[in-house]
């Protein structure tokens, strides 16, 4: 069973956002509404689609996350970078990156 959350980009500024428990969008991945069943994931994606229709976000999709200590963190490197920002540029790598990311950064 996968632990998943929904991410998208905000229409107005393109910033990365995550669907929250309250049904809003947050730029913090730890605010994500996390689900563990396929039915819940479909429901979550449906509710994200309503935000597409309302011109709030673009292209929502499900991502796999870990949910230790009640705080979501993406499993894939791409989604980790989306959540935390560039790893080695003028924006310095923030805390919370995985060991694999820190090794290169």
């Amino acid at each position, binding site marked *: 069973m996968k632990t998943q959350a929904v991410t998208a980009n905000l229409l107005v500024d*393109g910033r990365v956002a995550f669907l929250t428990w309250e049904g809003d969008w947050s730029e913090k991945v730890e605010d994500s509404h996390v689900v563990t069943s396929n039915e819940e994931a479909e429901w979550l994606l449906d509710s994200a689609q309503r935000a597409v229709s309302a011109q709030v976000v673009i292209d929502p999709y499900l991502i796999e996350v870990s949910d230790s200590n009640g705080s979501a963190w993406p499993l894939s490197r791409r989604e980790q970078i989306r959540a935390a920002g*560039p790893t*080695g*540029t003028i924006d310095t790598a923030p805390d919370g990156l995985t060991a694999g990311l820190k090794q290169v950064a």
Partner: protein
Amino acid sequence: MYRYDAYDTQLVGERVTQFRDQVRRRLDGSLSEDEFRPLRLLNGLYLQLHAYMLRVAIPYGTLSSEQMRMLAHIARRYDKGYGHFTTRQNIQFNWTRLEDAPDILADLAKVEMHAIQTSGNTIRNTTADPFAGVAAEEIEDPRIYCEIIRQWSTLHPEFSFLPRKFKIAVTGAREDRAAVRVHDIGLAIRRDNSGEVGFEVMVGGGQGRTPMIAKTIREFLPKDQLLSYLEAILRVYNLAGRRDNKYKARIKILVHELGAETFHEQVEAEWAQLRDAGPNLQAVEIARIAAFFDPPRYEEVDSASYQAKLFQDRTFADWVRTNVAPHKQDGYAIVSISLKPEGEAPGDATAAQMEAVADFAERYSLQEIRVTHEQNLVLPHVRQPDLYALWQGLRDQELATANIGLISDIIACPGLDYCGLATTRSIPVAQRISRLFANLDRQHDIGELRLKISGCINACGHHHVGHIGILGVDRKGEEYYQITLGGRADENAAIGKIIGPAFSSANIVDAVETLVTVYLERRRDHERFVDTYERVGQTPFKEALYGSR
């Protein structure tokens, strides 16, 4: 420099108005994302990993100081205070907002700039030798023809929906600083036996997942027939290029599958139909455009103080050795400004640095700046007696790294830190290599070594033509890096060969160190890395990396 006429001004102004309305309709829901996406891409606005990225065209890499100031303003006001100069001589802003995009385009239009045709399956910004107009050995200034191509190709109705994007590069010098042989069309200005000036026409070069060196399909094309010949090439491609598979849609695949000879015959047949009626260039029109690129009035210069400084200040002399090139005018110099300081992202410049470069251009370079495809900047008209003061000013802005052409002058694509297509990161690898070779004395001892890094097979970091190329590959979620050796983007262009299995991200930098060590042990006299590699072959490098298995 070229200045907009009434047509340019109207065209760019109308595009800003159109896009402002399109953005308004997107934000109020009148346009869906599917409807809007192609419209924003027509204006260079991509959605990348973290935000909207705006790619701004810098025609043939030439900027005025006024334009550079506007880029700094955009970086500061609409972005996070920096911009990224690209391998296509353009600039990208990584953190723009959709609602600001029309205002950014309006600001760009004030200084005769835009983002038209920086995306999509169109003819993109034509690139040129960054030393155009000032290189000592140049036949003619390629920017004249780049500007003519720009005017011909902008919103060209027949070529607005090509099978894939299309890139043209032009050089006027024998030494190729524009990588013309890895473009869809490369044009090299040549003189024939009678002394007439025209073009060698090369077609079908490119990188990506199927790298190819362009084939010469015409040794000499009279320059007045440039546009009709380009039109013939584009027509053959537009009709016969594949549209069923985007990975096989570039013209290089068509040239390869037909064979250069057959492709040439088809182009010549098409050209025979339109060469008389086609858009050929009148001498008066070439002269009109050429006048915009007339050489400035150079002064008589006494270079004695410059020569003295070279003996007095070794650090300055080291910078001159790598970052200063001969100018066609006695007493002047071409200055390359490195955007590769130790440990920084290649090609990035802060707003403050852009403003400083604009200041230096006004004070020392007749208001003119160039962007190189190697992600550096150039001041093309610096009086030799001004070099020392310029160098001191650049040092204050962290822009005086003496590493042009050396191992830390790395081309790197944005990679997975920014790009929606990338599978691995390239900037952090470049930063680690830059730190490993931070000792400039060592870099100068190693000599010219072109190292290029791409974060995926699309090869935006030009790894195929690096003396050392590094390609990031994703293996089950882990970043690995494959090394190619022997690539070159110069007049002897070549595609590098894969040396062996990829290295983990932890080991890739040590592998580069190993390659450099093998080179230093085996080089003769003044051989560059690539010369030694071509002489000794892969074996010693491979054995050092993998053992003699």
